[in-house]
């Protein structure tokens, strides 16, 4: 052991009984022989290390200066300077600041490793608790404070304080009301068409139009294998604006695809299709991602978020992944002008599950739908068993 350590005691003497006990069990092996670093024994190595550390600090300083230069010299943002296909400003600012910090860090660590004084010493473990005497003093002081404040002698004031502090929770709870209306309130008041979790703006006779351009679709426009990202015509007729428009659009998003009618493998899906054209909600029933990754050859629709896969030939049945419910299908018909229309709103809520939501299977949903809408739907060419 080094002579520099002579003043460091071998044991912390606050717990002599413990030290005696452990020493008896396992004798202190002592420190191994200390080897010096080259920088401790060789003045040349020491000089070299000093130069190294200073070099890193100098490089850091240069990078900091370059950062300031780049900040003023390079035009940022879109339409800014470009180096080799990259935005010059971001690239220069990021790398100069990053390297300034990195070189500073390397310099400090190198200094500590090569030049800061090199001492090895052992520190014994000792119990975390204070000694019994210290603990007694602390408890006595706490008791005295309790008496002096009168907490024990004046219970009324004490209880009043606790009660008023507890009531502070009320404002926080009352403010939760501002989180918004409940679904039941929205559905009852209907501030705009299709409001609430249970409805969308789709309705009987609403035309199915192409998203972005808003043009209506005739069944003959589509070939087998076509997929259309569709919206209700209501989105493009100017009747909705602002937030209600965006909410309506996000809930009503629909995918339309045409398959070989013989590929459809479920009666309900066939009833709600027109010449092999089927429409489904574009909102995944798992956590509501928009989905349109369709495989033309299998009619399997994949959600990119968590790989839920739905079979669009078979009422949107979940065939893989975490989604708990099938994809809602939009019943389709054709209006007097020959354009595709919805026969009703979606027969069940679109998107993710929520507390009050009913979960019926597809046949129950179809029976309910038939009772409410089948008669009206006949004007759009609806006929159970295929159109």
């Amino acid at each position, binding site marked *: 052991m080094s002579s520099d350590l002579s003043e460091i005691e071998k044991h912390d003497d606050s717990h002599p009984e413990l030290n005696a006990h452990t020493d008896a069990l396992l004798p202190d092996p002592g420190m191994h022989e200390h080897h*010096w670093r080259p920088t401790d024994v060789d003045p040349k190595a020491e000089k070299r290390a000093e130069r190294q550390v200073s070099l890193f600090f100098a490089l850091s300083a240069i990078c900091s200066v370059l950062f300031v230069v780049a900040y003023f010299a390079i035009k940022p943002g879109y339409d800014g300077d470009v180096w080799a296909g990259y935005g010059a400003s971001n690239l220069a600012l990021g790398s100069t600041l990053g390297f300034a910090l990195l070189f500073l860090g390397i310099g400090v660590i190198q200094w500590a490793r090569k030049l800061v004084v090199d001492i090895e010493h052992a520190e014994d473990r000792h119990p975390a608790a204070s000694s019994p005497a210290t603990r007694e003093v602390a408890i006595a002081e706490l008791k005295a404070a309790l008496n002096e404040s009168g907490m024990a002698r004046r219970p009324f004031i004490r209880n009043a304080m606790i009660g008023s502090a507890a009531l502070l929770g009320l404002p926080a709870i009352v403010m939760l009301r501002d989180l918004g209306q409940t679904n039941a309130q929205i559905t009852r008041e209907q501030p705009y068409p299709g409001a609430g979790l249970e409805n969308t703006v789709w309705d009987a006779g609403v035309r199915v139009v192409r998203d972005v351009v808003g043009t209506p679709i005739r069944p003959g426009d589509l070939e087998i294998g076509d997929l259309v990202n569709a919206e209700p015509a209501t989105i493009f007729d100017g009747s909705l604006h602002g937030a209600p428009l965006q909410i309506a659009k996000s809930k009503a998003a629909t995918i339309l695809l045409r398959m070989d009618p013989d590929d459809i493998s479920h009666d309900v899906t066939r009833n709600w299709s027109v010449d092999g054209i089927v429409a489904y909600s574009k909102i995944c029933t798992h956590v509501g991602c928009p989905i349109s990754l369709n495989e033309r050859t299998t009619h399997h629709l994949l959600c990119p978020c968590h790989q839920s896969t739905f079979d669009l030939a078979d009422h949107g049945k979940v065939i893989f992944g975490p989604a708990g419910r099938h994809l809602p299908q939009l019943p389709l018909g054709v209006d007097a002008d020959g354009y595709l229309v919805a026969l009703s709103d979606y027969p069940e809520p679109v998107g993710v599950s929520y507390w009050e939501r009913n979960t019926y299977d597809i046949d129950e949903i179809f029976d309910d739908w038939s009772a409410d809408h089948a008669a009206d739907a006949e004007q759009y060419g609806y006929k159970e068993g295929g159109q």
Partner: protein
Amino acid sequence: MRLLNRSVGRLSRHRRRPLAGAAVLLVALLSTGGLYAIFSPASQAEVEKDNAALVAEGKELFMINCSTCHGSNGEGITTQNGKLYGPSLIGVGAASVDFQVGTGRMPMAQPGAQVEVKDPSFNQDEIDAMAAYVASLGPGPAVPDREQYDPDTFESEEEREAAVALGGQIFLTNCTACHNFTGAGGAMPRGGEAPSILNTDPRHIYQAMLTGPQSMDTFSDGNISPEEKKAVIAYVESMKEQPDYGGFNNGALGPVTEGIVAWVVGLGVLVAFTVWIAAHTTRTNQTKKGSAK
């Protein structure tokens, strides 16, 4: 000049002779007919003859290179247990052949989840011949003209910019689900992938929308109109010119690659630094001058 004057003069002296009119008429007829023959389009009969020769040549190539999987009449082959060995090519059209063979997907290297893109095995004349043959099997989409797909053929810069704006919206609605916001591609079920379209020829992008190669949905002209298709291509081309303002995009594949880079490269470098900080420094057996030992 004198020679020319003299010969014109000599010619001029004969202009009232009885045969002069007939001679002029003959020269005029011959030159008109000759010029017409040189500059006029080939006659209908000749085109049909050329087409028949092209189809025959295409059929020959088809029999050698395609019929093993697609059947000797392009009718497709189904295996005994009902699996599709090679799909029917009746009605897929010339555009489909031009895309599949022109991008090197066909002839297929091996069956599997994803059809590999290779260097094309045939030159454009051979592809045209096979396309003509497959087109003769049944009506299908034709190979588009350059004006239909090439964004360089817009009449003005304003027209191109308007197309990029419209095409961007159509792209983000219809294409990003599989091909990613930047067109860098993405994963599909069961080992497939939607390929990157950043290095794809505009002609092939147009044909892919029209014909729906492999698992891709089709976007026929009744779904996305030809003008809108060209607008989508204009947008894809404009994306290629965009620099990466945010720095390195790691292939623009999104959170997966960014996560890999952060965890492997970022965390790896941090771990390496931590190891270096805690590592023992070099030691020597030499003793310190003036020290006890």
